[in-house]
């Protein structure tokens, strides 16, 4: 008899828990403060984020760009492990983007066609300096329905120096030594601030020169660190190296092979 009562108690407790869970779910889905107008707005979202991270570092005579190749849906579901987020536009311009992949592809197409036309109009390949301005203008044209992309443009500038230009989704442009964008940006930037920007290093300490080898190894470390903690970043590093006077080199390096 006693055991019977016990079972009933457990059954009631499970029931109570289920009821409670359902009530929580209902409240979360339809909170009282949410008016019918707001519910209406949430129905369709033209954007989605496919995760992933990109990063670029520039030095005296080189610029390197890296990204992971994972594409995710809702941060969990892996859509593909071979998504390319780096686009080599010409010998001196590399575009890398994170964000909404549909917009990324459109943006890439727009830039490619502008570069193609520029070749005919001005009988020369566009330099990364000009492309940087062009991209900024193109992003701002879409001020009120922006491309949902965190773009970074890198390459070798007109003076043969490495260049990295960083953008927000509506075209605010900044030339930096290094930049990152995407899901792991908050993890990569502090690391590079420390290692390349030396912002935390006290005065009087030796600041190692940024060589191509050092930049590449820092880049690998950034992505290894990011892949460890950030679930939408992973699978492979797509590494693109542009050096003054040399053709662009592309490499794929596996991430987290454990």
């Amino acid at each position: 008899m006693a055991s019977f009562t016990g079972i009933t108690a457990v059954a009631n407790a499970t029931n109570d828990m289920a009821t409670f869970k359902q009530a929580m779910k209902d409240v979360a889905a339809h909170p009282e403060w949410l008016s019918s107008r707001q519910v209406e707005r949430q129905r369709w979202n033209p954007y989605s984020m496919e995760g992933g991270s990109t990063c670029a570092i520039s030095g005296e005579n080189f610029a390197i760009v890296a990204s992971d190749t994972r594409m995710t849906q809702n941060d969990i579901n892996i859509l593909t492990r071979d998504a390319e987020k780096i686009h080599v536009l010409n010998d001196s311009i590399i575009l890398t983007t994170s964000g909404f992949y549909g917009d990324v592809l459109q943006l890439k197409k727009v830039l490619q066609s502008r570069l193609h036309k520029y070749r005919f109009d001005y009988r020369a390949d566009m330099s990364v300096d000009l492309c940087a301005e062009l991209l900024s203008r193109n992003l701002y044209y879409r001020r009120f329905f922006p491309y949902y992309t965190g773009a970074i443009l890198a390459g070798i500038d007109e003076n043969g120096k490495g260049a990295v230009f960083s953008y927000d989704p509506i075209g605010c442009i900044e030339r930096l030594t290094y930049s990152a964008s995407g899901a792991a940006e908050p993890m990569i930037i502090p690391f590079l601030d420390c290692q390349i920007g030396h912002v935390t290093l006290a005065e009087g300490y030796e600041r190692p020169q940024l060589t191509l080898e050092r930049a590449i190894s820092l880049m690998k470390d950034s992505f290894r660190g990011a892949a460890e903690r950030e679930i939408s970043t992973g699978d492979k590093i797509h590494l693109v190296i542009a050096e003054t006077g040399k053709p662009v080199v592309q490499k794929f390096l596996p991430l987290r092979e454990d």
Partner: protein
Amino acid sequence: MFLTRSEYDRGVNTFSPEGRLFQVEYAIEAVKLGSTSIGIKTSEGVLLAAEKRSTSKLMVNDAIEKISKVDQHIGEFRRYKFENCVTFAGLIADSRTLVERAQIEAQNFWFTYNRKIRVEDVTQSVANLALQFGDDDVKASMSRPFGVAMLFAGVDQEGAKLFHLDPSGTFIDCKAKSIGAASDGAEQNLKEQYHDALTIKEALKMALAILKQVMEEKLNSANVEVVVIKPAVDGKGRPIGEFTRVSNEELDTVITSL
């Protein structure tokens, strides 16, 4: 002038059996009705000199502008700097259309790329317009060829530049060139006197001496307009041109010394 006059000089876009477009050739002749202009390129910059022909004593000569600015922007120290300018011979009203096209194209380039357009590219864009004529009122913007020849002068990243554009849309990179009524005589003089080591001072004297020789009226500071564009450096260390109109006093000094 053409002995084989026929119906073929009526339609602007009909070839004659000998393969000529008479209307275009007539437009080239119209240039010779305009006043004389001279352009001289030196290692120190480019110089444009234009005759301002006044048909009446009652005309205000200062109001005639034979040399127009194509490109301008406000420099670092709020000082105006100009890169390209253009002088023309032929139908003044036609020249307005072409100058406006050049100005728009230069602004467009600056807006898109945040960079000054090259002299050659601005000339090319005007040349494209020069052949957009025809009796079709939908596509063509002009019903006949433009009756103007132009000299484009400026300094860009490639140094001092001088281009000659004729009504057929052909443009040529020149060291020195003359257009307008007395262009044949002036050009003969230029050929004899031009050398690669010219200074701007010498070029100014040469241009005024030639104009004095070929002009019907007596040369004075009121019926000539001279512009000099010298190489300068903008706020970002890029080569640009600095535009100066030679003052009447300076002109008078040179003219009296001739």
